[in-house]
């Protein structure tokens, strides 16, 4: 999954969570933090206290009042880091310790392999491994959004069911992967669903290891890590996210806030459908309310030109008022909307009758000339006005809903005509539907489990452009969810769950503070203006302990997981984080992009120009700073050296992405497909 940050304090900018692969430990936190859980907690508390002391000192004592344009942005950036530090410590405060309960016999499981345009051989590899999963009541489905004949044939060969979108999806939004899963959920019938992306090759034990957690009837899903078998030596693209699929998810799990990451998870079908049904009920109520409000407004503004229109408007106004009362009384929406629909029919009938009567009048005028035909028509119309009106009601233009209410009438249909399916178990508004799903499940009182054992292996993007696209999508999706679901206000979440979700979302705003922290040494070296007004001694005395404790807490959390690459990326991707926030706030429509699973050729220096620019500026600034000290314009040697050191650190952090942009895999290196892990290998991994 994604970046929430392991924050560092001040000048050293802060990295973000990495929602990607893990090379990770088994089931949970039995291997406690390096120093023991209490050792970690003492470090965390110390880090928080010292961090708050530092930031307090920055606000009260060391702001440079002569350069507020510089001092204030920097202190805000530092504050962002300090708050992040507190949120992070909270998240990992009490990691869950999980030991899988014995398998739950007799449970039926559907495996969903979602695919759109991946190579057939890749999907086949996953399908065959899925067929090899050890579980007696298992059915594998290939959910092919590409509707490709060759995938259908492959499904038949490998003994998998083949699912595509049916007729009802024609001309309706498809909602990418969320739509694909929603479609299949209503066709499958197992108790549980294992969701796998097309490239995620499952271990045969994946079900038997994770299914025992469902003994607890309130458990809605079990998430396992994502690990990638195609990450080249040195992980140039920062794909590995052992920290996320280890301490971070375990920490969230400790607060019953682990979240579903879209693949390698087993979910309870009943929980997902209940979510979809409740969402349907809420959405329909919203629409009926909206429709009634608009009708009331439009009816008030409408003017009758004929007596029948006057009657129609009166009938409708009465009905809308009556329906509004029924809604407030808590009557079911069926009853509420029937009141309006009946009035609408009556109004149309009345207007059709009037129009037919007018036609009959015209016929009468013609008949005065002695013609037989018109007189017959006239008699026929007047004799059976109501019946004829009913017959023609849909064909008379004047009887489309009075007052122009057609659109509002759709709100009364309770049918969600704009969607292929009325019941959307996975929310479809966000490109990261997985996180929104978890949040809604938690809000409805369901429990979740993070099982830290690697039980499936897949592919990470192999080039920078694909990797950036994927990260941008996650960042945008997460921010969308923050705005839409409002974790701090959503009913039904515990305090800790709110904080856990908020922490992840908060981390995606790091781009702004990172930018300021990258620019600060440049500004100092060029202008000689410092954002901090204090003696060098006092600055070091306040800063160094805060930084040190922050690093110690972080290392104690990571307990041996290599995190340096992730930290570099969290800083180096600052333009992407900024772009994500800005694009969502600006209301851009975000499209689900299937991440390419094969390396796209070329180098990508054009994608990293902001980072190159900052590196260039930093180098020039350092040169200028040193020259001005030797030239005697600037006498602050300590501050110049400090800024030089800081600038060099920034360059090291940013360099990772420049290297990645020019990266070519070493000659002779090729990813090793996982094959199927044998039980013994798996067990060895577990102990390792």
């Amino acid at each position, binding site marked *: 999954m994604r970046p929430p940050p392991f924050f560092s304090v001040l000048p050293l900018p802060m990295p973000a969570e990495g929602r990607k692969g893990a090379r990770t430990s088994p089931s949970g936190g039995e291997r406690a933090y390096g120093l023991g859980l209490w050792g970690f907690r003492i470090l965390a508390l110390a880090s928080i206290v010292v961090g708050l002391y530092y930031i307090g000192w920055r606000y009260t004592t060391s702001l440079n009042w002569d350069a507020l344009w510089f001092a204030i942005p920097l202190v805000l950036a530092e504050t962002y880091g300090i708050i992040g530090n507190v949120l992070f410590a909270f998240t990992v405060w009490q990691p869950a310790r999980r030991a899988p309960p014995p398998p739950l016999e007799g449970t039926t499981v559907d495996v969903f392999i979602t695919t759109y345009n991946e190579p057939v051989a890749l999907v086949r590899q996953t399908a065959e491994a899925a067929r090899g999963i050890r579980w007696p009541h298992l059915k594998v489905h290939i959910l092919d959004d590409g509707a490709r004949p060759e995938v259908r044939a492959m499904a038949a060969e490998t003994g998998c069911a083949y699912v595509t979108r049916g007729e009802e999806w024609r001309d309706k939004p498809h909602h990418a992967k969320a739509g694909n899963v929603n479609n299949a959920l209503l066709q499958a019938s197992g108790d549980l669903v294992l969701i796998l992306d097309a490239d995620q090759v499952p271990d045969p034990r994946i079900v038997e290891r994770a299914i025992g957690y469902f003994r607890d009837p309130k458990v809605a899903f079990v998430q396992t890590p994502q690990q990638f078998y195609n990450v080249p030596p040195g992980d140039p693209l920062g794909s590995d996210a052992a920290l996320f699929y280890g301490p971070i998810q375990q920490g969230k799990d400790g607060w019953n806030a682990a979240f579903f990451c879209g693949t390698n998870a087993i979910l309870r079908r009943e929980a997902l459908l209940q979510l979809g*049904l409740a969402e349907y*009920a809420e959405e329909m109520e919203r629409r009926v309310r909206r429709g009634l409000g608009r009708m009331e407004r439009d009816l008030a503004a409408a003017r009758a030109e004929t007596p029948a229109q006057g009657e129609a408007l009166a009938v409708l106004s009465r009905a809308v008022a009556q329906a509004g009362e029924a809604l407030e009384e808590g009557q079911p929406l069926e009853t509420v909307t029937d009141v309006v629909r009946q009035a609408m029919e009556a109004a149309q009938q009345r207007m059709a009758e009037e129009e037919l009567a007018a036609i009959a009048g015209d016929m009468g005028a013609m008949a005065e000339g002695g013609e037989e035909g018109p007189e017959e028509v006239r008699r026929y119309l007047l004799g059976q006005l109501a019946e004829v009106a009913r017959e023609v009601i849909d064909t008379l233009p004047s009887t489309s809903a009075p007052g122009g209410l057609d659109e509002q009438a759709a709100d009364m*249909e309770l*049918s969600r005509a704009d969607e292929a399916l009325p019941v959307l178990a996975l929310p479809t508004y966000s490109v990261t539907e997985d996180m929104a799903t978890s949040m809604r499940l938690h809000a409805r009182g369901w429990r979740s489990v993070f099982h830290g054992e690697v039980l499936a292996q897949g592919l990470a993007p192999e080039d920078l452009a694909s990797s950036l696209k994927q990260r941008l999508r996650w960042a945008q999706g997460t921010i969308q969810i923050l705005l839409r679901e409002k974790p701090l206000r959503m009913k039904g979440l515990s305090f800790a769950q709110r904080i856990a979700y908020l922490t992840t979302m908060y981390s995606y705003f790091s781009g702004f503070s990172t930018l300021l922290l990258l620019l600060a040494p440049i500004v100092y070296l060029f202008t000689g203006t410092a954002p901090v007004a204090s003696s060098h001694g006092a600055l070091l005395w306040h800063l160094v302990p805060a930084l040190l404790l922050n690093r110690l807490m972080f290392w104690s959390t990571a307990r041996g997981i290599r995190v340096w690459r992730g930290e570099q990326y969290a800083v180096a991707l600052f333009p992407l984080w900024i772009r994500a926030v800005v694009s969502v706030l600006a209301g851009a429509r975000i499209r689900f992009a299937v991440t390419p699973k094969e390396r796209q050729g070329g180098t990508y220096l054009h994608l990293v120009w902001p980072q190159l620019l900052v590196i260039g500026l930093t180098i020039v600034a350092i040169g200028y700073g040193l020259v001005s000290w030797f030239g005697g314009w600037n006498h602050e040697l300590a501050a110049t050296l400090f800024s030089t050191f800081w600038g060099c650190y920034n360059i090291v952090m940013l360099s990772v992405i420049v290297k990645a942009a020019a990266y070519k895999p070493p000659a002779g290196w090729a990813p090793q497909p996982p094959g199927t892990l044998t039980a013994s290998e798996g067990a060895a991994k577990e102990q390792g």
Partner: protein
Amino acid sequence: MMIKTRELEIGKESLSERCAVLALEGRLDALTALELKEAIRERVDAGQVELVVDLSGVPFIDSSGLAALVSGLKATRQAGGALKLAGLNEQARTVLRLTRLDRVFALYADRAAALEALGER
């Protein structure tokens, strides 16, 4: 969570060109929901868009069953008709409350009450 067997009978009773009753006997769950969905679609295609689903013979409904009822509601109402639920037991009412569908569906004690409500339309 035991392996379930398929057990749902759907009795169809046409009352007029527009109106029919579907009387269900058995469990309405993941294994049988599609049958109900098909039965409703068949009626709607035949022009019978005012339907009563009599659930008095249904001892158990799960969310898949409810999803089939919702898609039936959609199918009938889009065709200008209606779908009324009759004869729900306590278990069914509980899942409806749990999923908030009690805010959507009007529930009728028995078939006669549901038909009467249809007649008022």
